[in-house]
């Protein structure tokens, strides 16, 4: 039994009815009337080139074209963590698809037609497509001005190289650790790029009115961060934060792809030149693939030292990231991994080098998991290899080395309370670890694989949240916050948190998508941190309301406020069981007194949250000294696979995942994250395969050629397990789970294949073809 009334209950989503009835409004659904203009973006056809000339003569003749713009019209830089990007390319293009010019027209067809008529002459420069080439001796420099780019203080760019950031985390005696080891393993793993594939593409409409007010309607995870970056980038035009307003309707999927600022800045900038007219840009599915962010690719080199008894003595982890042409957001993925690439293990000697490397491929950025899926593939594969070499069961090995509360983390701070060992044990039990499984079909092999998971929110130490709550006349509530419900159920969870404190059921609470003019500040909806961070703000705002109600009771009834409590949509008294004052009777109109006057008035609450213990300040050579991560969410997962030995086809018969949510505010929504995250993870392993040609052009920017799973590709059985070891500073003990659900999938599949077939696959994706080839190879030897 939950100790709470509304927290811990699988209540119905408060946006469910809207979404299922077709009533939910997404950005593309907004109407702007007959004056709406459409922009079509002209994109670079070259991966690395100098722009010699842009000829718009033919394009201007197309009927319906209003105006054409090029980079020269917008000489402004922008970027979240490092300002390495211009709104439109200036002299140099650095990836195929980069925005070079824009046609603004009365209708989308005219804009498209004109865009095709713009002639751009390029002088080709040598492109660099592999991060390893980019750090070879005397490479082509993609950003010769790297040393001058403004960036956050915790980034360390290496001038005159292609290394935009190098995060080093060093702790303990590495040489000694390897010297003491009875077994040393060294391996290299590769993970390619991936695409988010939210079903809604990016859409933005922007209007700069005659009074100098810039309004942007965007499909966004980050309304406030966008407002901030627009105001920063457009400051030369005299635009101030108060002049910029971002309105974010429902978002049709984010997964990190709609975090920060990508194409939204194009509409914001174009609007400033088209005063009075709303300007709309909707990305096509192709553009969504190559000109938002992609997940970064990585080459990971690991060296692991172990004692015979299975204890780990040392880990060296070098990660070389293909971060793409611009890394204003992606460099922080690299940073996050540089702090956490130990995985959830106790390791006395650690050396992590995480290098953010420029290439002439599309910009890398946030993607659900923020680098953790990528490094866990290598690390968790290697842990299995180590256990096997030492003759220790893979689950036993993990139980022995799993990190516990209070253990020292790679950067020197201490691990938060967690249920990792419980997760391992429960997953092992559910998948019947150790029990042999044999297929009755001789052509097929059944096998199991295991993996741990952990992830911390990656955010600046001053990322904060705030909330307003107001009562309505009938005692219902409006909560105003600026996080985004990108599907995870954030709006519902905020309602449940306020409900718990105020004893108003969630179905009497409305939480809407934000408008930065009306709703208070939220950094952005990323890092699986809004339940924790904004949840704390909402909880504080609700407590603020509760305190005001008790104060009012004391004033109106002359009884000490300590005697009152909230229950059943109203106020009750410990002193007098018959006392009950319904919220609807006073929260707006006040409490009537005998003399005809009233006490009170509209009751509103405010709450803010900033993790004041967090700090990104540390020694650049060792990463020691700060407290960059607020906490880690941990868990474990396992699969049972059926593999066809001839075709290499993999069928997932069962997937089990246990995750420590601290306190699941809504267990039904946590389970939704597990079923959704697992399938997104499986997709990156089994289906999705991004193909670039030797010119750097993405060859499969559509769902016909870049396969994401359908109903027919789901595991036969999924068992979600929720562990609840409370997070001391979380609302009711909650911590985030959204990204974590997808990150153990690749290694657990790779480990299962090894366990069943003796093949060790070290690069993703793990397609049927790759498996079949590996089986053949093994039979040959």
């Amino acid at each position, binding site marked *: 039994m939950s100790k709470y009334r509304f927290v811990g209950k*699988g209540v*119905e*989503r408060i*946006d*469910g*009815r*809207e*979404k*299922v*009835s*077709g*009533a*939910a*409004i*997404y950005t*593309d*659904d907004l*109407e702007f009337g007959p004056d709406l203009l459409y922009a079509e973006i002209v994109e670079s056809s070259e991966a690395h080139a100098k722009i010699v000339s842009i000829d718009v003569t033919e394009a201007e003749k197309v009927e319906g074209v209003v105006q054409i713009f090029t980079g020269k019209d917008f000489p402004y830089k922008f970027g979240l963590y490092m300002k390495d990007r211009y709104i439109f390319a200036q002299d140099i293009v650095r990836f195929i698809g980069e925005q070079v010019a824009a046609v603004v027209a009365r209708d989308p067809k005219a804009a498209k037609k004109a865009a095709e008529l713009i002639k751009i002459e390029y002088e080709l420069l040598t492109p660099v497509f592999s991060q390893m080439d980019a750090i070879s001796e005397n490479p082509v420099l993609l950003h010769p001005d790297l040393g001058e780019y403004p960036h956050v203080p915790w980034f360390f760019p290496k001038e005159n190289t292609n290394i935009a950031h190098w995060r080093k985390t060093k702790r303990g005696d590495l040489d000694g650790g390897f010297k003491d080891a009875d077994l040393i393993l060294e391996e290299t793993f590769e993970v390619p790029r991936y695409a*988010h*594939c*939210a*079903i*809604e*593409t990016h859409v933005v409409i922007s209007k700069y009115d005659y009074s100098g007010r810039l309004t942007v309607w965007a499909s966004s995870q980050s309304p406030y961060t966008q407002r901030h970056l627009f105001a920063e980038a457009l400051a030369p035009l005299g635009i101030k934060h108060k002049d910029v307003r971002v309105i974010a309707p*429902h*978002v*049709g*999927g*984010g*997964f990190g792809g709609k975090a920060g600022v990508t194409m939204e800045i194009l509409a914001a900038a174009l609007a400033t030149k088209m005063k009075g007219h709303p300007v709309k840009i*909707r990305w*096509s*599915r192709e553009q969504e693939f190559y000109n938002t962010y992609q997940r970064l690719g990585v080459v990971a080199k690991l060296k692991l030292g172990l004692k015979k008894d299975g204890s780990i003595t040392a880990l060296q982890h070098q990660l070389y990231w293909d971060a793409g042409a611009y890394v204003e957001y992606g460099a922080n993925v690299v940073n996050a991994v540089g702090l956490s690439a130990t995985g959830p293990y106790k390791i006395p000697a650690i050396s992590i080098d995480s290098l953010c490397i420029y290439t002439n491929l599309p910009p890398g950025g946030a993607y659900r998991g923020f680098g953790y899926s990528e490094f866990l593939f290598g690390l968790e594969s290697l842990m299995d290899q180590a256990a096997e070499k030492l003759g220790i069961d893979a689950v036993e090995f993990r139980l022995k080395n799993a990190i516990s509360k209070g253990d020292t983390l790679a950067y020197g701070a201490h691990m938060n309370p967690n249920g990792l060992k419980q997760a391992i044990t429960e997953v092992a039990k559910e998948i019947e670890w150790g029990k042999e499984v044999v297929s009755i079909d001789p052509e097929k092999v059944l096998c199991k694989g295991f993996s741990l998971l952990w992830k911390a929110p990656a955010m600046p130490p001053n990322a904060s949240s705030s909330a307003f709550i107001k009562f309505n006349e009938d005692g219902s509530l409006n909560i105003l916050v600026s996080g985004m*419900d*990108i*599907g*995870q*159920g954030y709006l519902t969870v905020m309602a449940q948190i306020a409900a718990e404190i105020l004893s108003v059921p969630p179905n009497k609470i409305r939480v809407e998508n934000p408008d930065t003019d009306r709703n208070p500040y939220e950094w952005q909806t990323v890092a699986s941190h809004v339940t924790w961070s904004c949840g704390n703000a909402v909880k504080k705002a609700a407590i603020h309301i509760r305190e005001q109600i008790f104060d009012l009771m004391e004033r109106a009834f002359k009884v000490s406020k300590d005697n009152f409590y909230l229950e059943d949509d109203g106020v009750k008294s410990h002193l007098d069981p018959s006392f009950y004052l319904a919220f609807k009777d006073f929260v707006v109109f006040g409490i009537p007194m005998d003399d005809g006057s009233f006490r009170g008035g509209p009751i509103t609450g405010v709450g803010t949250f900033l993790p004041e213990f967090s700090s990104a300040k540390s020694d650049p050579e060792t990463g020691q000294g700060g407290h960059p991560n607020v906490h880690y969410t941990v868990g474990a997962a396992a699969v049972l696979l059926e593999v066809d030995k001839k075709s290499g086809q993999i069928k997932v018969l069962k997937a089990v995942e246990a995750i420590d949510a601290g306190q699941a505010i809504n267990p*039904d*929504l946590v389970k*939704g994250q597990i*079923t*959704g*995250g*697992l*399938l*997104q993870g499986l997709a990156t392993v089994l289906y999705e395969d991004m193909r670039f040609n030797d010119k750097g052009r993405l060859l499969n920017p*559509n*769902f*016909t050629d870049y396969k*994401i*799973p*359908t*109903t*027919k590709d*789901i595991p036969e059985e*999924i068992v979600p397990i929720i562990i609840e070891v409370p997070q001391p500073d979380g609302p009711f003990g909650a911590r985030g789970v959204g990204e974590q659900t997808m990150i153990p999938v690749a290694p657990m599949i790779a480990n299962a294949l090894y366990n069943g077939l003796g093949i060790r696959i070290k690069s993703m994706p793990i397609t049927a073809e790759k498996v079949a080839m590996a089986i053949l190879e093994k039979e040959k030897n």
Partner: protein
Amino acid sequence: MNKITFIINGEKRSIYVEPNDVLLDVLRDKLGLKSPKCGCERGDCGACSVLLNGKSVRSCLVFAIEVDGCEIETVEGISQNGLSVVQEAFIEMNSFQCGFCAPGVVIATTELLRKNSTPTKEEIKEALAGNLCRCTGYTPILEAVEKISHHNKHNSDNTGGTNE
């Protein structure tokens, strides 16, 4: 411009369209029906699905001019006299996350249940295989439809009659 006449969500409408106007754009921009969504414009995602003479079609692949004389139903039409049993089941089961795929899934499920009120799990998967959902892993969507199927089966076993 060509004049076309059709029944949309029970109402007879006549409008003018260009021969190359796509049905999805016409529904959204000329008729203000926003439930069909654009996810790919090439028939891959199913977000734009509508019922055309009772059969689900991807409206991004249909020219508006082709629907002259036809009957079209969108999720607005399905919802207008109260939500259907399947919509209520989706709400109860928290089937959707971002909800962008929901209109297409409601269309595909409505078509399925009108033809077959007691589909098996495999039949449900087959019927929804053309609707991409990136958020849910499909499980909570399939569970809601299965629940209706069980319910219908149970009812028909008892009463001999079925309906959607």
